[in-house]
């Protein structure tokens, strides 16, 4: 084969690669366009009120947010459920994840560091439906029999743990299972930003007479805090979009209750549950609009998180104790 042919092949290869790179951008654009087009019906029917309105049922006089048969659609209970379950998950996962990261980077014997980090990241490889099954068969019964009664007995006065729900499903169950699922990503990123803190910072703290904990606080966590916030937000991004496990344990009722033990629902759960059997075009369109809102929300959260992690780790190669 002559050299001329290989020049053509080279150019062809270049174009192919450019095409591959552009396809990612193209897919995102297609998704957004499709979501916008298909949510037009709902957008024209409800406008911005879609995100915060409620209706009163004329027969029962009760507040209704989502009644596909009578054409009432409001995204409020889904947004509420997504936010409540995600923040509950953060509340549970963050202390644990930071603890795991501190242990692995600062305290763990070197030989154990690799295997333990590997195990903690393996949690991320378990399919979400498996978490859901585990939650349904193990977690929910435990909550129902033991934890929820205790919570409502001792913390019931706050109103956050009124136990009117005999199933064990609900926000607490969803929050716990989400916490387990986002634990690996938060702890592995926290580990990464903590390892990027130069060793000289640890020595500076130790030389001042810091104990090990003071050294970690002053020399490590303080320097890594922006990156840790990034890791937490990235975990939040995962939690917001998580569908399967949440759908299985959150209870799937489009209501808003103060109690965390009550049934709820989430943006992704309602789409998964209702899309295939939508009763009308407007129903379908409303579900798509919820999807669009979720898409925009997670894009923003993820971008913010990546930015923070990047700001902290750029140009700083991981350093370990010499």
């Amino acid at each position, binding site marked *: 084969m002559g050299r001329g042919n290989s020049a053509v092949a080279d150019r062809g290869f270049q174009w192919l690669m450019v095409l591959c790179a552009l396809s990612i951008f193209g897919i995102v654009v297609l998704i957004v366009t499709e979501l916008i087009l298909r949510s037009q019906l709902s957008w024209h029917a409800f406008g911005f009120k879609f995100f915060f309105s409620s209706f009163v049922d004329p027969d029962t006089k009760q507040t209704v947010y989502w009644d596909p048969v009578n054409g009432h659609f409001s995204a409020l209970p889904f947004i509420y459920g997504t936010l409540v379950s995600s923040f509950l998950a953060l509340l549970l996962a963050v202390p644990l994840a930071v603890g795991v990261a501190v242990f692995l980077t600062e305290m763990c*014997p*070197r030989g154990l560091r690799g295997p333990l980090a590997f195990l903690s990241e393996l949690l991320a490889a378990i399919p979400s439906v498996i978490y859901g099954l585990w939650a349904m068969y193990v977690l929910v019964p435990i909550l129902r029999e033991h934890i929820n009664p205790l919570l409502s007995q001792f913390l019931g006065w706050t109103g956050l743990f009124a136990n009117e729900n005999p199933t064990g499903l609900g926000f607490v169950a969803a929050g716990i299972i989400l916490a387990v699922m986002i634990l690996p990503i938060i702890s592995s990123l926290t580990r990464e930003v903590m390892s990027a803190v*130069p060793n*000289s*910072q640890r*020595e*500076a*703290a*130790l*030389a*001042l*007479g*810091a*104990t090990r904990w*003071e050294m970690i606080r*002053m*020399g490590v966590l*303080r*320097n890594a*805090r922006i990156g840790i916030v990034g890791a937490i937000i990235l975990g939040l991004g995962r939690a917001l979009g998580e569908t399967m496990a949440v759908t299985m344990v959150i209870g799937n009722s489009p209501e808003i209750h103060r109690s965390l033990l009550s049934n709820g629902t989430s943006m992704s759960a309602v789409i998964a549950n209702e899309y295939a059997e939508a009763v009308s075009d407007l129903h379908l369109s409303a579900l798509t609009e919820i999807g669009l809102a979720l898409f925009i929300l997670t894009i923003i959260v993820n971008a913010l998180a990546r930015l923070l992690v990047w700001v902290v780790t750029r140009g700083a190669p991981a350093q370990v*104790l*010499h």
Partner: protein
Amino acid sequence: MGVGIEVSNLNAWYGSNHTLQDINLNIPANHATALIGPSGCGKSTFVRCINRMHETNPIARVSGTVRIGELDIYHDATPVEIRRRVGMVFQRPNPFPTMSIYDNVAAGLKLNGYSNRRALDDVVERSLKDSALWDEVKDDLKKKSGASLSGGQQQRLCIARALAVDPEVLLMDEPASALDPVSTSKIEDLIFELKTQYTIVIVTHNMQQAARVAEKTGFFLNGRMVEFDSTHKIFTNPSDKRTEDYITGRFG
């Protein structure tokens, strides 16, 4: 006030590497003592043994006795207690970048549980004056971060941070080797001032520096201390052939 340091039969290892072998010397109180020698001779390891920083490395070991004043630091005290009495300044300035200048200086005091604002203000001012940084930073003590200063200023900030806890001994591990000549000479002037109040041990690659700031000088080679004497004697009339070879530039 400074106290003397008495080192006997000090040995140190990194893994199987015997980095310090049978070191014996007496470092006088309220003087500057310089440690010189080629790279890897053990002089840095030696100062790290004086504040027990050596053992922060999991593969490091140490044996022998180091007395700071009356205190046997390896038997009668914890590393944390020792490091609160022995300040250290590192080769590369390492201020805490997320803390203000003020908080950097106050960091050690806060570890000791100081919280009285007025007392902290006084100590921060005194330490920054002692490290000759006060005039340059007094207007943005709480506005600027420690990392916003120049390299030389950062190093003086680190000296202020070490002085704030009122140590008896100040260890300096090549404190000027990452700095420009002007900053270097400021640090040297500072050492001259500080040695009236503290016992200073300075590791240096720069023999002129040792000659300028220190009354006593020790020459390290291959993990052993070859010679320890007055700086004048070491540089003009050393007893050991190897010291002479080193200071006349025949090796190292």
